[in-house]
């Protein structure tokens, strides 16, 4: 039905830090059939408020609906689509790879190139910690495949605007005004 081509978008939401909020949000995504590629939640700089960062799959129309439905939840205070902004986006991953005495230094070279860290060494494996955007993590994973990846754990992306002028907290209404009037919850 939706003719827009599929892409991924980053959406950030400021939410009340109350029991069940994550459930409300994820239940809405499930019920409406929106796809989340990743979701990261943590405290914000304000007491009792958390920030959620979603990477959502879908075209413009889907993202507009996601934004509106997020905003409709009473516990969601602000929603921003920050995909096209000048943002810093980061994700942390832990990767356990097979390694032995012979290939350990080769792995260390790859790790260095990616400015990643080895955070645990065992006789037959290593744990590598890497931060960066999703692409960087995937490239590192590709390079490590040859050694044998045993386990991958990723936090999901978090993102923030560059510069002092933080638009995350106030841009939702302005961004959307052009197309459908004012933002609001209902």
């Amino acid at each position, binding site marked *: 039905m939706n003719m827009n081509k599929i892409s991924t978008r980053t959406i950030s939401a400021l939410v009340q830090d109350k029991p069940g909020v994550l459930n409300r949000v994820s239940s809405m995504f499930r019920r409406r059939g929106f796809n989340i590629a990743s979701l990261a939640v943590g405290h914000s700089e304000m007491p009792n408020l958390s920030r959620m960062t979603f990477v959502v799959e879908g075209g413009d129309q889907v993202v507009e609906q996601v934004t509106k439905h997020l905003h409709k939840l*009473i516990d969601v205070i602000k929603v921003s689509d920050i995909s096209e902004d000048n943002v810093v986006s980061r994700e942390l991953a832990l990767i356990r790879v097979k390694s032995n005495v012979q290939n350990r230094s080769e792995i260390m070279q790859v790790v260095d190139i990616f400015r990643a860290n080895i955070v645990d060494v065992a006789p037959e494996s290593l744990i590598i910690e890497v931060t960066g955007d999703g692409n960087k993590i995937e490239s590192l994973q590709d390079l490590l495949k040859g050694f044998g990846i045993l386990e991958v754990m990723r936090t999901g992306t978090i993102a923030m605007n560059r510069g002092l002028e933080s638009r995350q907290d106030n841009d939702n209404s302005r961004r959307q005004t052009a197309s459908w009037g004012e933002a609001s919850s209902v």
Partner: protein
Amino acid sequence: MNLTGGQMVCESLIREGVDVIFGLPGGAILPLYQTLPEYPQLRHILVRHEQGAAHAADGYARVTGRPGVAWATSGPGATNLVTGIASAQMDSVPMVVITGQVSRAAIGSDAFQETDTTGITLPITKHNYLIMDPAEIPQAIHEAFHIANSGRPGPVLVDIPKDVFQEKGVFEYPNKIDLPGYKPTLGGHASQIKKAAKLISESQRPVILAGHGIIFSEAYDELKELAEKAQIPVITTLLGISSFPDDHLLCVGMPGMHGMAYASLAIEEADLLIALGMRFDDRITGKRSAFALGSRKIHIDIDPSEIGKNIPVDVPIVGDLKSVLTKLNKHIEPATHVGWLQRIEDLKSKHPSMNIRDTDKLLPQYIIQQLSEATDGNAYVVTGVGQHQMWAAQHYVYKEPRSFVTSGGSGAMGYEVPGAMGVQVGKPDKVVWSVAGDGGFQMTMAELATMVENNIPVKFAIINNNYLGMVRQWQEFFYQKNYVATSYTHNPDFVKLAEAFGMLGIRVTDKTQVRSAIEKAMDYDGPALIDFVVEEEENVFPMIPAGQTIHDLIEEPAPEKAMRQ
């Protein structure tokens, strides 16, 4: 003031202006019940099934505009409310539901009658609360009423553990709401409103689609002003019926699956759709990609997420209809649209969807038409779901706002009995008719006892076709008359049933008895029931089969056309 949690609930409800509660007790909510005698201002109506409490609160809310209140105990009490809550959510009906929960210490232990009520109702409420401290009660209830009846209305549930009802705390009623994440937009964007006015003045063939939002916003006069000033025909959605008088010259009636053919055709031929507080439901659009392709669209709704959800829109306006239409009307130039109105008259005469077949048989359509005449279009009509619902929508001439009450989005059979009870409680001085299906009626008929007990004088017209008629119609059209599990071969004797409940019961099998039976039921002081034994295989026309377009319209009893596809 130091009060128990139970007392706090009652004090809070009184401060919110509540006068009636529909409910049924059980262990977890008992401490609340035991405080009720201290508050004689709160009228409690004891139902026979919690679904009845929820639908009754819904019916009460739809006709009064004030949130209906239902409450029940934990576990099965709460789950019995679910159908009614879901229906209210689908139709944006303001309701506050209170459920008892097991004591705090037992939560999560699968205790007796524990269910995760906030979890179950999360997707079918506008918002919900689990209270863990009696001191939270006043704030939560104050917020619940605010959320339920502002913005796009909806049901809000407050789940309260048994020991929270019992524990004492300081009662202080909040006088303000602090919900930073909830600030409905009311005013409408000034430049968008101007754009809408421009589109309206440019259009040659505009139509208004008036939905439930007009009723919630009570924007009847503003709608009428817009329609009359620019001479724009008004089409009402199923839930928009009664937002604009059916006997108005500009009223074109209901469109869509079982709407008037001329209303659907007018939408197809229009060059501008002005959608007011409606959501382009699939029963109206049919196949979305083929819906009203020749028109531009203005969509005014208080819920931004409805705009662009189903149909692309040219001029979206988020706001409360009363306020937006007041502003819009100032920019509207008087117009006549003579040619367009003439075209609609032509459509009406070429496609007489309201005609009733001339026969001696007892037709449901005839019964509704007689009901309309006998009550002069001034009764409140509540329906179940199915064929009788569509006939009641089509053939009654509604004159009074809020007077057509039906479970639209959810389509909950069984609404007709408790829904009508709530409507009558909300409008004690009005004549309330429940147009019931023999199927739906039997789902909730236990509430007849509640009505007799509380002297709630609803009049029932059971359109008894001994079938789950609407499903049978689908089987006839789309499954080669393969009537699987739709025939009721042993319906009860509804007249005896009425008498057993202590009501007046009348049976009508002949056309000539219709009018006198209606009069007799209305003259009777108390609830009454007429069992109209109608033509069993009568079908609802027109019909646009699900997912199809105006070109697939079936207007006459010639189902072969439909059966071919």
